[in-house]
C-alpha cells in the first residue's frame, strides 16, 4: 500500500496546477462564504440635513430642557452621515448616487414637539437603484427613527410624571423664570381635613367638604398608579432576550467553522474521487486488483491519502485564520480531530463518486455538483421552511458529511457539547460510504 501512496504523492507533486487549484479554489470559496456570513454590509452613506437652528435644538417641557439632537446618536452609529446644509442638497446627493439615502430634519421639528399639537415629521429619501441596499437603508433609518421616537417619548413621559407628582404631592414649580408654589392634592386633602374639624357638628358644609376630601384622596391614590401607566405608554413593548439551545457561537467564529468545513469538503472529495478515478482512467485499476492489491486496501490507501492531505491543508488554514479571527488556540487539537474525522467521511464519499465514474474530470464535476447543494442544504435555518420539510432537510444533511463536519468543527473550535457524538457520526458515515464504495466497485469497475 505504501508504494501506491508514494506513487500518488509523486503524481500529485508532478501536477502543480492541479494541487494549486485543489488548495486555492476551496480556500477562496470558504473565505468568500466566511466573509458573507461574518460581515454585515458596510455602514450606508446617508445625507443628513438638520435644518433646526442650533439655538432650537432643545425643547422645554414643564421647566425641563430636552436636547432632541442627543436622540440622533444611535442613528449616527448605524449610518455613515454625510452632513449637508439644505434639503435640496440632500436630495441631489441621493439622485446623483453619492449617498444611498437622505434624512432631513425640518426646521420646525422642535417647535412642533414643543407645541405638542401635531407630530413632528422627518423626511427620508432613498436611492432605489440597488434594491438590496435601498431596503437596508430604509430599514436602518426606520428602525433608528423608531428608537429615537421611543427615547423621546420616554423623556416626555418623565416630564409628565414629574407634573403628576407635583399635582399629587405639591411643591415648587418654575415657569418662565417665575417660581410657583403648587399646593398638591395631598396637602389640599390635609387642609380640608383640618378645615372640616373646625366646623361645628351638624354643619351642612361638613358633608360637602367630605365629598371634596374623598375626591382628593381618590385622585391622589390614582395618581400614584400613573407612574406605571405612563411607563407602559412610553414603552408598550419590552423585549426580554433568552438564549435557548444552540450555543452562543459568535458569527465570525461560526464563519471559521463553515470556511474550514467547505475547504475540507472540496479538497477531500476532489482528491479521493480523483485518485480512484485516475486508476481507472489510466487503465491501471484492473491490473492492480488482479492480485497485486486488494480492492479494500486500494480504497483505504486513497482514503488515507485524501484525508491526510486535506487535514493538513485545513489545519494550516485554521492556523492562518486564527491570526485574524479570535480563536482559542487551546482547542486546536480538538479542531484537528474534528477535521480528521470529517476528512475520513468526505474521503469515503469521494471514493463513492470515484467508483461511479471512469474519468477524473467526470469525478471532479460530480463532486462539485454534489457539494454545493449539500452545503446549502446544511445551512438552511430552522423556521425558514415548513417544519416537515425542515425535518427532511435535517435527515438528508445527516446522511452526508458536510453538516456533521460543520457541527464537529463548530463545537471543537467554539465550545459546546456532543463533540464525541459528532465524531462518531462522521466515523459512521466513513463506514457507510466505505461499504457503498466497495459495492460500487464490484458493480461498476
Amino acid at each position, binding site marked *: 500500500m505504501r508504494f501506491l501512496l508514494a506513487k500518488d504523492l509523486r503524481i500529485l507533486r*508532478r501536477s502543480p496546477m492541479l494541487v494549486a487549484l485543489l488548495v486555492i479554489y476551496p480556500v477562496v470559496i470558504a473565505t468568500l462564504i466566511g466573509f458573507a456570513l461574518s460581515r454585515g454590509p458596510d455602514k450606508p452613506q446617508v445625507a443628513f440635513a438638520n435644518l433646526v437652528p442650533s439655538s432650537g435644538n432643545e425643547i422645554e417641557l414643564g421647566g425641563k430642557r430636552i436636547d432632541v439632537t442627543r436622540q440622533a446618536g444611535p442613528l449616527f452609529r448605524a449610518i455613515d452621515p454625510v452632513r449637508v446644509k439644505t434639503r435640496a442638497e440632500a436630495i441631489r446627493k441621493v439622485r446623483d448616487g453619492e449617498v444611498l439615502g437622505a434624512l432631513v430634519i425640518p426646521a420646525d421639528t422642535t417647535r412642533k414637539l414643543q407645541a405638542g399639537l401635531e407630530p413632528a415629521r422627518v423626511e427620508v429619501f432613498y436611492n432605489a437603484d440597488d434594491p438590496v441596499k435601498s431596503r437596508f437603508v430604509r430599514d436602518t433609518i426606520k428602525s433608528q427613527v423608531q428608537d429615537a421616537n421611543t427615547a423621546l417619548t420616554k423623556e416626555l413621559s418623565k416630564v409628565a410624571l414629574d407634573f403628576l407628582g407635583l399635582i399629587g404631592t405639591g411643591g415648587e414649580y418654575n415657569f418662565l423664570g417665575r417660581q410657583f408654589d403648587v399646593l398638591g392634592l395631598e396637602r389640599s386633602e390635609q387642609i380640608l381635613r383640618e378645615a372640616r374639624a373646625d366646623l361645628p357638628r351638624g354643619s351642612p358644609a361638613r358633608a360637602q367638604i367630605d365629598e371634596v376630601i374623598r375626591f382628593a384622596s381618590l385622585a391622589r391614590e390614582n395618581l400614584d398608579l400613573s407612574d406605571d401607566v405612563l411607563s407602559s405608554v412610553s414603552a408598550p413593548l419590552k423585549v426580554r432576550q433568552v438564549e435557548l439551545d444552540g450555543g452562543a457561537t459568535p458569527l465570525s467564529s461560526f464563519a471559521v467553522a463553515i470556511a474550514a468545513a467547505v475547504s475540507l469538503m472540496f479538497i477531500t472529495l476532489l482528491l479521493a474521487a480523483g485518485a480512484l478515478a485516475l486508476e481507472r482512467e489510466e487503465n491501471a485499476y484492473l*491490473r492492480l486488483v*488482479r492480485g*497485486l492489491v486488494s480492492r479494500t486496501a486500494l480504497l483505504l490507501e486513497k482514503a488515507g491519502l485524501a484525508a491526510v492531505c486535506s487535514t493538513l491543508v485545513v489545519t494550516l488554514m485554521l492556523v492562518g485564520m486564527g491570526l485574524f479571527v479570535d480563536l482559542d488556540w487551546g482547542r486546536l487539537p480538538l479542531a484537528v480531530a474534528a477535521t480528521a474525522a470529517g476528512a475520513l467521511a468526505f474521503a469515503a464519499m469521494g471514493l463513492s463518486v470515484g467508483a461511479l465514474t471512469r474519468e477524473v474530470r467526470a469525478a471532479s464535476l460530480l463532486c462539485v455538483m454534489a457539494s454545493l447543494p449539500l452545503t446549502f442544504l446544511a445551512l438552511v435555518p430552522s423556521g425558514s421552511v415548513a417544519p416537515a420539510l425542515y425535518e427532511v432537510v435535517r435527515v438528508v444533511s445527516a446522511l452526508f458529511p458536510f453538516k456533521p463536519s460543520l457541527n464537529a468543527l463548530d463545537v471543537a473550535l467554539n465550545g459546546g457539547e456532543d463533540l464525541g457524538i459528532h465524531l462518531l457520526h462522521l466515523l459512521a458515515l466513513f463506514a457507510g460510504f466505505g461499504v457503498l464504495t466497495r459495492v460500487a466497485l464490484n458493480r461498476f469497475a
Partner: protein
Amino acid sequence: MTGDAVLSAERLTKRYGDREALREVSLSAGRGELVAVIGPNGAGKTTLLSILAGIQQADEGSVSLGPREIGWVPQQAALYGKLTVAENLRLFARLEKADDPEAEVERMLELTGLRERADDQVSVLSGGNRQRVNIAIGLLGRQPVLLLDEPSAALDPRQRERVWEFVLSLAAGGTTVVYSTHDIAEAERHAHRVLVLADGELIFTGAPGELEDAVESETSHRGSDFEQAFVAYLKARGH
C-alpha cells in the same frame, strides 16, 4: 515449439443475463507456444482472456492457473502517464514483490530496448513504446504465461512490427503467449496455433495452415484474399 500444456482451460462458459458471451470453450497452450485467439468483434475474445487472467469469473468451467501465475497485458496501456518508464516498472515490480525490484527494472529496460527513455514520463512516449512498457509490466512477475489483449491495436505498422519482435523474443525465451486479435494476417503470420471464436463459440483450433485449409474446403475462395475467405467461412458456419 509446443510442449506439455502450461495453461489449460476447460469448458469455460460466461453469461451476461440471457446472452452467452462464451460457450463451453476449452483450450491449452504449451511452453513457448504462441496462441492467437481470433474472431469478429463481440466474438468473446476479451471475455476469454479476462477469465484466463482472473479478472472475471466464469459461470462454468475452470482454468489451470491462478491469476498470480499468469501475466496479463490489457488492450489499453495500463500505465501512469505522470510517472517515468522506470518509475512505472519499479512500482509494479514492488507490487509484484520482486526479490530485487531494481534488477527487474533493469531487465525490463533491457528487454524493451527503452533504456534511453527510462527517465521519460510515459505520457510523452509513442503508442508503440508505451505498449512495450505495458507488456514489460505484464512480464514483471516472471509468470510462465502471458496474455495479450489485442497488443497491436491502434499502432502504426512500424510500431506494430517492433511490438511483435518483442513478443516473439519472449516466446522464443519460453514464455507461453496467448493473444487476441481481429487481424487475421497477424494471427497467420505470428501464431503457432489459432483459435477461432464466433458468438462465444470455439469453431476452430489448429495451426494457421490448417485454418487456411479449413477455410478453402468450406468456401469457394481458393487462392483469393484470406480475410474475405475467413468471413465467408464464418458465414458458412452460421456466424
